[in-house]
């Protein structure tokens, strides 16, 4: 039977450069949050982080997964990809810093705001990355905080 301490886990595969489906995983996670009765503000925070994390995989990585672990007091979003990795995470966190290719920027993505946006909306954020292996991003939203 369901164990209350076990989170609800929603997991979605995300493909690099698949802009046609970019945002679908974040949409599904957002929808679940609405159905779980999260507050408007919590829904928005989760939606923003999930979308930016998903887009990061689409833009930069080869492929990956986006997972939402939903507990009654917090939501953990884990974006795990295999890809080029982030050589300098500190630099990547600088507002406006972007390594997105030109054609991606032309689509209106990759303005170098993604990680900032995630940081702004998360209560905790950790990023682990290995060059040419991939990146694991974990963002935690404590429910009910602003």
């Amino acid at each position: 039977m369901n164990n209350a301490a076990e989170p609800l886990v929603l997991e979605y595969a995300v493909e690099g450069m698949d802009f046609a489906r970019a945002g679908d995983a974040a949409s599904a996670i957002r929808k679940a949050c609405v159905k779980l009765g999260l507050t408007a503000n919590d829904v928005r925070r989760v939606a923003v982080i999930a979308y930016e994390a998903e887009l990061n995989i689409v833009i930069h990585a080869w492929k990956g997964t986006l997972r939402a672990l939903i507990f009654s007091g917090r939501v953990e979003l884990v974006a795990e990809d295999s890809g080029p990795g982030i050589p300098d995470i500190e630099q990547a966190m600088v507002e406006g810093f972007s390594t997105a290719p030109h054609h991606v920027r032309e689509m209106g993505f990759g303005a170098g705001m993604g990680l900032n946006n995630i940081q702004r909306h998360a209560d905790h954020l950790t990023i682990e990355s290995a060059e040419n292996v991939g990146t694991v991003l974990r963002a935690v939203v404590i429910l009910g905080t602003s």
Partner: protein
Amino acid sequence: MNRYFHSVTLDADKCKGCTNCIKHCPTEAIRVRDGKAVIKEERCIDCGECIRICPNHAKVAVTDDLELLTRFRHTIALPAPAFMGQFGPDALPDRILGALLSLGFDEVFEVALAAEAVTYAFRRVIDSGRARRPPISAACPAVVRLLQVRFPSLLEHLIRVESPMELAARMAKRQATAGGAFRPAEVGAFFITPCPAKVTAIKQPVGTHTSSVDGAISLVAAYGEVRKLLDSGSSLPLRATGPGLGWGRAGGEAMAVGSGTLLSVDGIHSVIKVLEEVERGRLEEIDFIEAQACVGGCIGGPLVVQNPFVARVRLRNLANRYWESQSVFSEAQLDQEYTQGLWNMVRPIGPRPVMRLDDDVQRAIDKMKLVEETLEQLPGLDCGSCGAPSCRALAEDIARQDAADTDCIFILRERVQELAEGVVDLASKLPPAIRAGQKKDGEPE
């Protein structure tokens, strides 16, 4: 009074229990039960998608009858801008408005006039730079209700100015009662509506406590009567100008507002996509969002007569012809009324969390786990035979204990097969005594 008023209702006699409507509802508010569609009242936003899609015309919009006019000493018609786009080029606007008088109204106040005032208010809100970006028009009541149900975090983006319909009623009544000619209770204002959402906005308003509009006459009904009376000789000069008239079609609000980065989106499913973008904080460069539930805007409403694409070009021509006309409002008057806050919504618009699985987050999480488990057992065809719009919706209904897994015909068939196989299996098993006897009989000597 019922907790919920809905204009959109079911004509059970006409409903065949097909699955067209359930699959088009943006809030998954419809199920088929006992061969008939059932609307979950708390979820319905009266957008009218089901009215449009129903092949049997079993979904209807409840509107008011023209007989309601007899209850008032002085009656005012409030034609929606979309109404003017229903007629051909030979029907002059003055004649259309005149025909409304012949129909029995004592006065006509064009909603397009109030749309000019609302446009002014939008402009002021945008220019103030104080609005939550991007500000969203609250003119379409179905969009407002969609926000309450599915995008509660965006409610603070709504521009808290009443709709042109509501303002038109207030302005018209103020004029009619000025000087004591009539007491407020003697004046009745009737909106000629292209959609059910407006009817609900009158009967159960969200931004105000009581609507100043006393009734909603279906545009279809009014059109038929007005057509017959076009040659009645009655004529009333059109007072609205192009920007207000243009509100009847998608893009009209933005066009009236004029300059800036203005986004217009129409069709409820497209609106949802844009709202998702807004929530992600991706559209902060936008100065204003006009969002209309119906494709084409109000001329695409479920209660219109004319093909919306034809109505669009007619309304555009009409708006162009009167674009530069002199407005009845002076800049000073608009400024004064806006500054006094006369047009503001007075009631907060709160979320309506009707989509949630449970009031308690932990219990909702447990139910959602059950949904995900159930979903793996379901075929994923979204066939609708169970009466729910999708396998996921059925799984949620099961978690809410509103449905059973055997409502799925594929699971039911599987169970029947298992049972049948079990019966066959059992049939071959006989007690030893009989088995022995049978063996004797059956065995060749």
